[in-house]
């Protein structure tokens, strides 16, 4: 396929993904809006007032907001690609793409772009909701944007791997429930890892979500529990590794071609 044709193919997948997200908005966009509103009301307004400042001049709800946005982005990027690609496998219309001349990276790129766009839509919605509860600064716009893109891409790639290996719908629910949610809750969304005793503090540094949440918080509030350079190294490393794994799986046809 030449570059123009590849671009058309890529755009076709992205368009189909966005159409799907908007068609089933009550399953894709509404739930995170409701869940995050509850988080802001309960943890931010009600409990947060008693917590006090997390850093000089930063209230608990201000500290919480970037973490909640990143949590929504991660969960929705992952959930979008795992359910959409597994749905295509389950209904067998993934074969429409497999018999076409599209290279594997175009299929992966289209689905990842769709997942990142869902993350963006949900992120903007949650950010908008947070403005009803607190004020949001934007200290480092490029850090904020790049962290969002890297985090959404990492979890889109992970969701894709999950969908490739999944054989039934249960298989795409297990990872979010038993891995993603605990990692997110323990990834510094609700607290500063420096508050944790040893060895929990050290163990937390093995959690990749910690780096994403803190880099995003740095972009919005200029506050971070960890080094931003280290956070970028971790995120870029994950994108490269997971991207290579996905392309390898597509090339070998694992879970797709017999």
């Amino acid at each position, binding site marked *: 396929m030449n570059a123009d*044709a590849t671009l058309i193919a890529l755009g076709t997948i992205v368009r189909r993904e966005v159409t799907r997200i908007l068609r089933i908005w009550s399953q894709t966009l509404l739930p995170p809006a409701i869940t995050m509103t509850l988080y802001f009301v309960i943890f931010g307004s009600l409990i947060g007032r008693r917590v006090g400042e997390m850093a000089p001049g930063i209230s608990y709800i201000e500290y919480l907001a970037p973490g909640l946005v990143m949590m929504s982005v991660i969960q929705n990027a992952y959930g979008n690609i795992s359910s959409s690609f597994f749905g295509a496998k389950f*209904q067998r*219309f993934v*074969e*429409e793409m*497999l*018999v*076409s*001349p599209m290279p594997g990276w175009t299929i992966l790129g289209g689905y990842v772009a769709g997942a990142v766009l869902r993350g963006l839509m949900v992120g903007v919605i949650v950010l908008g909701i947070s403005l009803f509860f607190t004020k949001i600064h934007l200290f480092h716009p490029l850090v904020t944007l790049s962290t969002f893109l890297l985090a959404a891409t990492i979890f889109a790639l992970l969701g894709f791997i999950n969908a490739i290996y999944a054989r039934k719908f249960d298989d795409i629910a297990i990872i979010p429930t038993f891995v993603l949610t605990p990692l997110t809750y323990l990834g510094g969304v609700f607290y500063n890892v420096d508050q944790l005793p040893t060895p929990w503090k050290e163990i937390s540094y093995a959690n990749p979500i910690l780096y994403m949440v803190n880099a995003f918080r740095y972009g919005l509030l200029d506050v971070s529990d960890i080094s931003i350079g280290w956070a970028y190294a971790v995120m870029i490393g994950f994108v490269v590794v997971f991207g290579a794994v996905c392309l390898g799986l597509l090339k070998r046809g694992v879970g797709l071609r017999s």
Partner: protein
Amino acid sequence: MSISPSAAPALEVRDLKKTYPNGVQALKGISLRVAAGDFYALLGPNGAGKSTLIGIVSSLVNSSSGDALVFGVPIRTRRSEAMQMIGLVPQEMNFNLFEQPFQICINQAGFYGVPRKVAAERAEKYLKQLGLWDKAFEVSRTLSGGMKRRLMIARAMMNEPRLLILDEPTAGVDIEIRRSMWKFIQGINAAGTTVILTTHYLEEAEQLCRNIAIIDHGRIIVDTAMKNLLAKLDVETFVLDLVNACTELPAVDGVKLTRIDDHTIEAEMSRAHDLNSLFAALSARGVTVVSMRNKANRLEELFVRLIDANDKEQAA
């Protein structure tokens, strides 16, 4: 030496083998050539290896060894180029049931890099030709079985393929729709597209296809022109419509008569046997024939014989 795409056969398969991870050897070294512009039947009993062969050609199944070339382009090393020339109508429904037929066609064209405007024109053209335009913007899961099969044909045409592969396209479709599908596919073939058809309706293969391969137990047991294959059949069956009810079948030398109903009998006889002696024998017994036709199951007869013979050979 490279083969120019125009001179190359539409499909060339060389010693293709496939063993699945569970140990099942679906293809045991298949070789065949389908000429450009041909209408080619690929027949075989269930589990013979037809769908595996189609799966390898359409890149849904990885072969264990051997080569498959589409218009001279090897699938293994130049997959993208080869796939650009193929349209596939699979046996199982494999489209998004929540999308509209028009959208399904547009998306399929997009996967082949067809610009959206051209894709919209093609979608309208093929959905109209296949009698689906009035359903183009309805959710596809509401379509009937026959409509879903026609939708898969329209979708396969979106890249205007040079080789169209149809894997049991008319399964479960009523005769009226089946005939309209035949007409459409014949039109596509007449316009230059090579067609490979698998079907369990042998009458369909006999009427449509010029060449035929029969595959059984992962091997090609026949690969020849349809007329050559049919010429091998030394027995012919005629259906005779009678004026008066016939309750007892007369005995006629060299002819096996079977009663279908009171006014219809079938006469199975050697091609060498002349019809005059049959009519003379029937007249002598007071049986008057008002009309007569060939029973259109010649290929079925041959197919059953060949598969039986191959089964016996395998068992031996």
